[in-house]
């Protein structure tokens, strides 16, 4: 299994509080991704990173920010959590931007509940 660790694995918090999820990889892969998974919607891309300090928005980026200060760490922050952000969040990595050649490897997810 690819060395991807997500923390925390579970979190319950209240509306309006800030939340930071961490993704740590030991594969030295350049590309990292944050997805959310919701029933009826499948997996949707929030933000991605193509290098240290290089990030861009995905399909559902509103309300989220990311940072990548080191190759191995990719942080996802909810500045002021809302109930609509209750979801399971997955981090993924890939060695190559061109997905023709490389699959993505996923962490085991963070289950976030916002009350």
């Amino acid at each position: 299994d690819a060395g991807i660790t997500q923390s925390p694995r579970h979190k319950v918090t209240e509306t309006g509080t800030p939340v930071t999820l961490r993704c740590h990889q030991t594969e030295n892969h350049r590309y990292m991704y944050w997805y959310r998974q919701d029933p009826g919607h499948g997996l949707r891309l929030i933000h991605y990173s193509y290098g240290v300090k290089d990030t861009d928005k995905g399909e559902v980026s509103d309300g989220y920010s990311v940072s990548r200060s080191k190759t191995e760490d990719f942080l996802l922050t909810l500045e002021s959590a809302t109930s609509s952000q209750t979801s399971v969040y997955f981090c993924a990595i890939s060695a190559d931007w061109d997905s023709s050649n490389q699959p993505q490897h996923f962490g085991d997810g963070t289950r976030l509940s916002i009350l």
Partner: protein
Amino acid sequence: SQQGEEDPQALSIQEGENATMNCSYKTSINNLQWYRQNSGRGLVHLILIRSNEREKHSGRLRVTLDTSKKSSSLLITASRAADTASYFCATGQGTYGGSQGNLIFGKGTKLSVKP
């Protein structure tokens, strides 16, 4: 926006039977990938098929791709209880740089294999 749509949404079979799942997509692609997700875990890459390939095998898995119909199928032969999981297709447009390099996931097929 969702690109791949899996069919059926749910499939229940007996151990030893074959399982077939289909994926349809809308725009031209460079490759199509299939992933498996066990309950409570992250996605695991199964197989990648490029747009110039028609069929690919990996163990008990057989994937076909028909670019004229914009569809793919995943066949699992001689299924086992351990194959119980959700299966997702993901399409890649394979363009370096920009959002076109991202994978777009379908909503998945939930497969249940009964002993």
